[in-house]
């Protein structure tokens, strides 16, 4: 296990990523709000390059007290990583598919030391 320097924390804006590789290993490192996440660039569905997909806010549907649907909106708090091959959508917080918690992408540990972002490989 070694820590790999990725970039300075301040150079990564919310929703931005750095894609790094080591031999066959490809990892996407993301900043979402003030947190750093790192995942293997392989989707568990058909092996798509999940880390090269869009970062999207969760879509929420709202119900009134009497259970009528009153429309949809984007979440301000929850963001997802979307595989560009087939649209499988994963939560940054849990690395699991939004619609099925049994489907997950592989997460790597990250840390920020003195403003510098590292991923443990």
């Amino acid at each position: 296990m070694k820590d790999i320097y990725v970039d300075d924390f301040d150079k990564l804006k919310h929703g931005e990523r750095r894609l790094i590789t080591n031999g066959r290993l490809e990892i996407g490192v993301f900043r979402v709000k003030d947190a750093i996440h790192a995942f293997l660039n392989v989707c568990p569905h058909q092996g798509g390059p999940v880390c090269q997909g869009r970062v999207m806010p969760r879509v929420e549907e709202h119900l009134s007290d009497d259970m009528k649907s009153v429309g949809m909106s984007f979440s301000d708090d929850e963001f997802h990583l979307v595989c560009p091959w087939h649209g499988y959508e994963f939560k940054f917080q849990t690395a699991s598919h939004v619609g099925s918690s049994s489907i997950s992408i592989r997460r790597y540990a990250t840390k920020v030391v003195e403003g510098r972002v590292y991923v443990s490989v």
Partner: protein
Amino acid sequence: MDEARDVPEFRSFGGNEPLSTESDTREMLRNAAKYRDQKKLNDYFIVDLDTHHIETGSWNEIVEFIEDPILREEALSAKRKPESRLGPVLFHANGGMFSQSVSGRIPHSNLASGEPRDDLSVHGDVVPLRRAMDSFGIDRMVMFPNALLQVGTHPNVKVEVNLAFAYAKFMTEVVLPGDPRLKTMALLPFSDPDACVRMIDMYGDHPSVIGFTITSVRHNPVHDNKYMRVYRMLEERGLPLSFHAGYNWQDGYLRQLDKFLTMHAISFVLCNMVHMTNWVMHGLSERFPKLNVVWIESGLAYVPFLMQRLDNEYLMRQSEAPLLKRLPSEYIKEMFHCCQPMERTNLKLLEATFEAINAESQLLFSSDWPHWDFDSPSIITDLPFVSEQGKRNILGENARRIYKKL
């Protein structure tokens, strides 16, 4: 980034932006190329029975081939006046055609790809198709259009006929010569049986036209007596007949489904179920026993459902289907089915489906690339319950058995 230089084995790849409609197919399918090598897919003969040629971008060229001078002038009028912001005239796509990318989440499915095309020796449409074949490890790619799959819903039969012929001419003279691996199954202008006969006469011997297609999005009962000579022609020439499914959001029941997801899930299956039911229960398999029939882009889960449903009802109402000499399911077992989009969230059910349809001899691989629900060849090689020979059959040998021109 100083420390990054201290770890030279690490480097950034592919830029730091998400893939987009501007991305090169080779970059979009870079992982597929890895699996091609890891799984030794180049050792298989792989036929992709359903890939989509994005005809939208070449519409102005296609309409140049329209035979009817009045319709051709109507189509070309838009080309001559781009400032008028007219959409492509005669382009008959119903609602949802441009909703396939899930609001841009799946960029390769956008119809107007901005991918750079650097090989000027072939038509521009050939370039991304070649890149996809090479990335997946595909040996033969059979192409269908997009919006033209809905041409059977056009209220003017002359439009359907003229567009079918214009597209066949464009493909055989412009696109297909660009790579010998590219093939097609020409669209039959099914609303006009005389035109179907002429289409088979014109293209039946073309080396890149390996069969013919009924676009399933239509309301023409396939058992109508007026089609019998069309089926006879295909049977005599040994040319398979395919039914390519599609969606029709304007269809009565489907108008209740207000999401692309729900409409797509039902519509692509419904049209082929209707045609398959008519085909089987009107005894067309008995009438044309040597005609190979192929069902495209409805997935597989619906097939065992329909087999059970028809068998169950047939046994109680046999007098309504007197041409049948066996159970409906036994005819369906002898048909050919393209796998995509292969439902596989429950592998036990998928295994039972494979058994029900005799998959090792009747299933054909299809990718549906570049659509949002495409399947790559490794979905077949990864299946735990299929024999090695079965995988080879599904990926290419079954197709080579029935398509003599592959």
